[in-house]
């Protein structure tokens, strides 16, 4: 609005609590930590840690490997988790669907579980020894399809990504569901009168209206995946086996920053990795904020 307007203190009041708590408890400590990336035990070293990270093959190989794995992890989520989430939300939002609340809750339950249990139960299910999956496959005569999925370099990462999808599909589902519900009934009724029902209603009317929500889940998936850590840590350990096939940036960072087994924590190199990750994620978020979000049309209902 016009520049002559009196200072709008309420904006500051609205922002202050969040900004204060967040700055004090999160940003200052975190940036204090990232700052460590410019130091070594002996003092300020400029970008030397980054030179090591990207120049020393030992470090850079691990970094690129983790990044590659991470990208794959993210792709699986985008291709599997989000479409399934959207599909489920679309089904759940059909008017007067019986048992909708039950389905919604049931599908959301995995999201509530702690990683410890998720890791345990999926290892139990996929275990070649205790064999829920093998015995079920055997029951349908597909035993030959079974492999020790978590133990093979080719399958471990994808398997973990799918487990993660299983666990978190509730999140896109909830967000999309909330977005779908905020579309006014009358618009959907108008579509119904126009003969636009079922899938075409979804594609032509609902989907365009929930694009901003889809944008949000995409960026949340991106950020979440590039920060992911727990599931892999719980299932495969900090060394993200087999042979680092499931190593993603989060596990690589954890191992480096906090140390693992005999490897001592190296906050400086850890901070360098964290900074690199941060920049990658920031770049992604900026692309979203400036290139995508501003182009998404929003509709007021």
């Amino acid at each position: 609005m016009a520049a002559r307007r009196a200072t709008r203190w309420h904006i500051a009041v609205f922002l202050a609590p969040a900004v204060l708590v967040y700055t004090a408890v999160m940003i200052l400590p975190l940036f204090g930590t990232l700052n460590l990336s410019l130091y070594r035990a002996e003092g300020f070293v400029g970008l030397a840690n980054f030179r090591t990270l990207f120049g020393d093959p030992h470090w850079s190989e691990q970094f690129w490997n983790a990044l590659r794995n991470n990208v794959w992890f993210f792709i699986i989520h985008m291709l599997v988790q989000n479409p399934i989430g959207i599909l489920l939300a679309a089904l759940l939002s059909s008017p007067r669907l019986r048992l909708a609340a039950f389905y919604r809750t049931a599908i959301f339950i995995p999201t509530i579980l702690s990683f410890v249990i998720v890791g345990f139960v999926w290892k139990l299910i996929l275990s070649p020894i205790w064999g829920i999956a093998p015995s079920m496959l055997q029951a349908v005569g597909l035993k030959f399809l079974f492999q020790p999925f978590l133990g093979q370099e080719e399958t471990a990462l994808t398997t973990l990504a799918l487990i993660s999808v299983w666990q978190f599909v509730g999140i896109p589902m909830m967000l999309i569901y909330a977005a779908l519900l905020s579309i006014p009934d009358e618009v959907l009724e108008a579509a119904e009168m126009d003969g636009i029902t079922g899938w075409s209603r979804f594609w032509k009317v609902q989907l365009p209206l929930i694009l901003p929500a889809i944008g949000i889940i995409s960026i949340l998936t991106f950020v979440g995946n590039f920060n992911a850590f727990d599931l892999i840590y719980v299932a495969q350990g900090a060394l993200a086996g087999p042979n680092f096939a499931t190593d993603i940036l989060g596990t690589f960072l954890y191992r480096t920053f906090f140390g693992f087994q005999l490897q001592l924590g190296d906050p400086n190199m850890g901070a360098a990795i964290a900074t690199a990750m941060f920049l990658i994620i920031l770049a992604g978020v900026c692309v979203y904020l400036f290139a995508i979000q501003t182009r998404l049309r929003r509709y007021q209902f």
Partner: protein
Amino acid sequence: MAARSHPGRTFAAHAILIAYTLIALFPVWVIVINSVKSRRAIFGAPLAVPTPETWDLVGYTTVLENGDFFGYFQNSLIVTVASIFFVLLFGAMAAFALSEYRFRGNTLTGLYLALGIMIPIRLGTVAILQGMVAAGLVNTLTALILVYTAQGLPLAVFILSEFMRNVSDDLKNAGRMDGLSEYAIFFRLVLPLVRPAMATVAVFTMIPIWNDLWFPLILAPSEATKTITLGSQVFIGQFVTNWNAVLAALSLAIVPVLILYLIFSRQLIRGITAGAVK
């Protein structure tokens, strides 16, 4: 609406939903049945329903005997609920400022508030712990609430500001014409109308808090302030894990979150049925 649903399509919808529900619940089922079996039976036949021979509540009894589980529950609940409250309140306020007003630095503030989701907060542990030591907050629930509030804010702001953009301007303007201050518009009009989004954010915020092990371990490990997740860790040993107890403890730990989830998802539905007009 009875007249409006197609039997075929409804059937397909149910088929897909039931199929996915099975996929979602099967592992949960495995967890639950195994939590009431003896250790041998868990690994001997993980899929089997407990029989009189394998029925064993040792997990639950161990859990209840070991430490003050109800106290842990209570701590977890206090921390989770208080954190959600502050995340929602502060987050919604900031989201409102960002989505409603154009001011210089709007996008930058938004970006600043989003930075937090890009770096794992664990990295700031030492500085956070030092701060808490200095403030005398170690081994208090307040320390956890502060950290979780800060941790939950970025996501809350991000999601809520998107949803707040959908609230009709005419409506807010009607409020302004009615003499409502910006605060009143926020609290009386916008908050109730974004209730579904608030419920969603509450759920997202709640889960990592409830399941977090790290900050309780660092900031509040004392017996009086232990959370349920931290309490369950006792059973995870170096060489052997008491799976009966872990399964029992974590199965029990699902219940309160599930209840919270149900409460919030009701809000979600209620927010919707309050219904927007035009």
